[in-house]
């Protein structure tokens, strides 16, 4: 079915692009071949849409995320450029790259009775860490895990409109807006599984509202969404429940914690208290609870994170190693031991396939960009950095 859809699209692009570039005849032949026998008709596309079945021979190829999974894998709050691209191209295509494949293979072979594995994607700005994270999340989703995806930890730590003193603990601060947003996303991602998990503890929100032991996790989440004031505490409760339950053999699910921008949890914040003194990240409920999840004292799942430089204040562009960004004392020690996965710029093959993908989508309109010299110029100007290449192509 996916094949027919793709071949239809190609036929459309063939009729449009026949006059535009000379490789149209090549495409035509390929389209004819596709209709006759189901072979990968473009070098840069792969038929394998399931991350579990992807292997090294698919390196550098694009696979399409089925539209039902798009909402789950790329939640709201992700950086704006990629969702825009999804809308423009009418499909969500992700490139199969080495770092993500490594993580997926580790997850396949891991022993889940031991403490959770922790991965950190690190690399230069715009080299594809967030998308690698989303790729791994897609794998976890297709395997039926519970996915706890924090698309941008920095949003929790930057200036926040509403900061309430926590009801649970006087010294901490709540962020109801961010908490409800996250709970909504969580619900959309994990709808099917939420109805199966039961809570093991009784939670009391106010004098009259409480959630009984044994009720579904879905109800807890709904409670958080409807009662905005106590939503941060609900987040904390959800995380605690999942953490406790995922290690049990009778739980029947595995937990994947995906945090983008994990160095936000240990850095400085932009938020100020009423007396203008800065707030430590530990004093925020959301951050505090997330940090508990980061520790590997629970089992039955994995923690996949990325480091982010762009939104981190007080840091220069040149530092991208985990040591520098996590902070020597606090973050590094809490995350240690972890598996660092470096995400480099595109290799030649990957750049080639990205270029062909843009050509196929008719994204490169400038006649010069379709020539060999144009390609060399693009390589030079972007230095094969994915984000830089994409920004270049936007105005071509």
């Amino acid at each position, binding site marked *: 079915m996916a094949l027919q859809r793709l071949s239809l699209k190609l036929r459309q692009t063939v009729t449009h692009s026949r006059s535009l570039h000379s490789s149209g005849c090549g495409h035509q032949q390929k389209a004819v071949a596709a209709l006759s026998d189901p072979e990968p008709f473009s070098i840069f596309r792969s038929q394998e849409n399931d991350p579990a079945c992807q292997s090294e021979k698919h390196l550098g190829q694009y696979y399409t995320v089925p539209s039902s999974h798009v909402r789950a894998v790329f939640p709201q709050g992700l950086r704006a450029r990629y969702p825009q691209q999804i809308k423009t191209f009418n499909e969500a295509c992700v490139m199969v790259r080495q770092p993500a494949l490594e993580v997926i293979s580790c997850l396949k072979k891991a022993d889940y009775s031991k403490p959770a594995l922790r991965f950190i994607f690190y690399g230069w700005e715009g080299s594809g860490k967030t998308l690698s994270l989303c790729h791994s999340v897609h794998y976890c989703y297709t395997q039926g895990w519970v996915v706890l995806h924090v698309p941008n930890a920095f949003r929790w730590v930057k200036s926040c409109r509403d900061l309430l003193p926590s009801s649970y603990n006087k010294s901490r601060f709540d962020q109801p807006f961010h908490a409800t947003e996250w709970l909504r996303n969580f619900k959309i991602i994990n709808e099917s599984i939420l109805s199966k998990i039961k809570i093991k503890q009784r939670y009391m929100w106010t004098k009259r509202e409480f959630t009984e032991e044994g009720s579904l996790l879905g109800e807890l989440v709904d409670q958080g969404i409807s009662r905005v004031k106590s939503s941060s505490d609900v987040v904390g409760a959800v995380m605690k429940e999942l953490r406790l339950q995922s290690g049990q053999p009778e739980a029947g699910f595995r937990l994947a914690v995906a945090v983008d921008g994990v160095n936000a949890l240990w850095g400085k914040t932009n938020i100020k208290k009423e007396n203008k003194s800065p707030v430590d990240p530990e004093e925020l409920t959301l951050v505090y609870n997330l940090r508990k999840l980061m520790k590997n004292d629970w089992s039955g799942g994995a923690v996949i994170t990325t480091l982010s430089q762009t939104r981190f204040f007080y840091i220069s*562009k*040149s530092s991208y190693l985990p040591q520098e960004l996590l902070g020597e004392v606090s973050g590094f020690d809490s995350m240690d031991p972890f598996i660092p996965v470096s995400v480099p710029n595109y290799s030649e093959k990957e750049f080639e396939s990205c270029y062909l993908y843009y050509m196929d989508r008719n994204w490169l309109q400038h006649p010069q960009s379709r020539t060999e010299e144009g390609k*060399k*110029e693009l*390589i030079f100007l972007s230095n094969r*950095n994915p984000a830089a290449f994409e920004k270049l192509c936007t105005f071509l």
Partner: protein
Amino acid sequence: MAASCVRTVGSFIGKCGHCSLGINTITSQVSRQVLNRQICVSSALHGKNIASMGPEKFTAEFIQKQVEEYNIGKRHLANMMGEDPENFTQEDIDRSIAYLFPSSLFVKEARPVMKHPDIIFPKQKAAQWGEDGRPFHFLFYTGKQAYYSLMHDLYGKILKLEKYQDRLKVKGLFSSEGKKASLGLSRWLTKEELEQLLVQPTSQQDYNHFIQLIERLLSMPYSGTEEEFILRYRYQLEAESRKQTVQPLQKDEKGVAFSSAEGRRKTSNSSVILRDCGSGRVTVNGQDYLHYFPFLQHREQLMFPLQFVDMLGRFDLQCTVSGGGPSSQAGALRLAISRALLSFLSEGDMENMRQAGLLTPDPRVRERKKPGQEGARRKFTWKRR
């Protein structure tokens, strides 16, 4: 202004020369001093309206006197500098004047100078008519005698060439190839230059007509015989392209050919080592150039020389740059890359690069702030009261 400077310099040297030689002709000395004093008085005291007088007119005797003074002054200068008066060239004079009268004025034309009066005083029309009132030139009453006489000569030459061609045809030796005039790298004189040559204002139409006629002369076969006449009206451009010194290619230990060069722009200095490796990696000051130059424009500046000669993926660049801001650093790097590329290129490519402007150092520098103004050009806010 330059004229009066020269006069003082020339006559000053003459005076010193006289004193040192010990020739005591008192009358000539006195007259010389009187002459000096007359010349040195500023023209404002004459009480005349200078602007309405038009350009200064010099008589032929005056110019002749200046030439004599110049020659004598040249010999005195040579004596002063301890060099041979017979073989004292204009470059030696310039050098000596720059040594004796050092000036740090920015505008080179304002510095003291000693040149032949023909160069300094603008060419003037010689006397047009004799004592009886009869003009010398037969075309005087056309009003534009120099221009029309030139056209007359040109047309005469064309007719002569045609006659020559006819004679050759009769003999059967005519070939349409013929000996054409070889011009080298030159261009026709512009209208202003032609006006200067003819000492007579020329209109645009006259100039076009002249160019048309001389092109016709050029296009005829056997115009090589009139080559010398044609070259008088062409301006040579050859000097510019030969000035570039090309660095030779050096090889380092692994046998990889590399070349290095330096470049400057505004206040930045840069040096580049270009290696013929085959990968297109660029490092600036140890960092990746994508991080050093986050702006696309600066990376395009770096790319321009390599793209111009189609050698984008071939070289490995190792750059160091300091001073100035990002744009000026990018410009300095571009110049350094083009210069380093020269050793890998042929003559024709070098000429192309020069014409593209890649090899010209950008002379624009920050302009000085002047007193009485807020910036270099911006004046203070003008208030009516």
